[in-house]
């Protein structure tokens, strides 16, 4: 199971047949594992990593540190939910340390992001403070180095 998921995580396009061959397993067994993982939401989705910068697409992203006061019975979760329901929010994580939530947000323009922070986030109940950091450049994303310059430099034939 783990190996199947690892392979899919590295390349979502691999077919059950290819995975089965690579792992020396039965194709039907692998197909069943994938289906079960999808049903159990172990597999949350299949995505494509796009370098939007290269396309020249205007996209602004920011990480926002959020301090909140936890609520009785539900702790941080209820506030987190109010935040992660916004579609422009790409990720929300509860953190140890100086702030509570780290929120990654993506918008079309700086203005949109600023608008979200001031009108939606900072003014939200139980949110004590926010600190917004705009992303200037992405070097590595989901374990993939953007524009990796490390190419195959081997001689074409070697003993």
């Amino acid at each position, binding site marked *: 199971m783990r190996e199947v998921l690892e*392979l899919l995580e590295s*390349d979502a396009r691999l077919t059950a047949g*290819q995975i089965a*061959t*690579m*792992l*020396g397993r039965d194709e039907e067994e692998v197909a069943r594992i994938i289906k079960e993982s999808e049903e159990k939401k172990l597999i949350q989705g299949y995505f494509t990593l796009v370098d939007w910068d290269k396309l020249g697409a205007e996209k602004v992203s920011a990480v926002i540190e959020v301090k909140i006061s936890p609520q009785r019975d539900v702790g941080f979760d209820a506030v987190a939910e109010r935040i992660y329901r916004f579609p422009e929010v790409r990720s929300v994580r509860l953190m140890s340390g100086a702030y509570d939530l780290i929120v990654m947000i993506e918008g079309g323009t700086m203005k949109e992001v600023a608008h979200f922070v001031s009108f939606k986030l900072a003014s939200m109940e139980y949110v004590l403070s926010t600190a917004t950091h705009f992303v200037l450049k992405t070097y590595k994303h989901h374990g993939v180095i953007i524009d990796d310059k*490390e190419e*195959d430099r*081997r*001689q*074409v*034939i*070697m*003993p």
Partner: protein
Amino acid sequence: MTLQTDWRGMLNPAVRDLPPSGIRRFFDLVTEVKGIISLGVGEPDFVTPWHIREACVYSLEKGYTMYTSNHGMLELREEIARDIRDTYKVDYNPRSEVLVTVGVSEGLDLAMRTLLRPGDEVMIPQPSYVSYAPCVILAGGRPVYLKTSVEDGFQLAAEQVEKAITPRARILVLSYPNNPTGATIDRKNLLEIAEVAAAHNLVVISDEVYDKLTYVGEHTCVSSLPGMRERTVLLNGFSKAYAMTGWRVGYAAGNGDFISAMTKIHQYTMLCAPITAQLAALEALKNGRREMRKMIDMYNRRRRLVVDAFREIGLPCFEPRGAFYAFPDIRSTGLTSEEFAVQLLNEEKVLVVPGNAFGEQGEGFVRCAYAASLEDLGEALKRMGSFVKRRLGRGKVLTASFRKPEQDEGEGMRQTV
């Protein structure tokens, strides 16, 4: 008056008459062709793991740019001894029984030069890595080839060694997992070979540079066999397991008297292995396990894909259990290894190495390194598929000699036709 110098006449005949490497010859052909996918590279497609490179960069910043002890840094030798002990339960004294070399390549050359007297015989299983015979010849010895075949899973058998024994027989080279076949050798065969080696007082030079790249069963370290530690020169290095080919660092482990004799040549001809490479190797041994395992898992997955694809294409392929080579049987195409490789290169721009570059016994096969990305492998296999289809489609009648005898899937035989 100018003196016309005839350089050919001035050359050492042993060097002059050394045939150029079959691979080299092929290489000259290749440099002309653009846009090829190469399965001809006998080295990892991975770049050295970053933590190792970073450790080296740091060492340079700290000013580690000097010679080391001739033997190699003690700390590295200690880690090498620990690694061998942890993996194979064989003890080597890092102070007297380990020498850090410039790759297995240097270890091999030193071992031959340290041991051989003119005319001594060295038994070399074939097909095998291209350097063994030249190193023997350059050291004044005489190579004797022991032919292994696909029917025996390219494993050497004790009887073959026994049969080749002459009064001049001194050394037996063992090289498993094997380049170019990917064969490993069963422990049982090694035990029998060890008996023959002991009976005839042979030194065994065991090149185990692919030991960590064993996918089926467990690698048996030759010096871990009963009585073999004392008669074995164990050669290994960092090139393959840690993707460190360009660093040029390896080691020899063996009897203390032998290692100190070997160190004499090393000291006068090499002085020491590069310090940057030694520090990188140290980092590899200390912290490199996880990254190494990851690379090996990837090779293993590609191995299964490639073998499966060859069989699908219609090329019988012996199951390689180690290294990163597949060695498909191309005789059904009616072509020789060289014809196959040259025509495949011209028509499909896929580079494989003709099997006969690794000795006569490799004729009828080609070596395909699967140390390549999945994308490249997929594309290369597709192209090879159409190439083979065209050849088989031409309706060449297979002569009886081209057909393999039917095989059981017995021990060491993984031939699927």
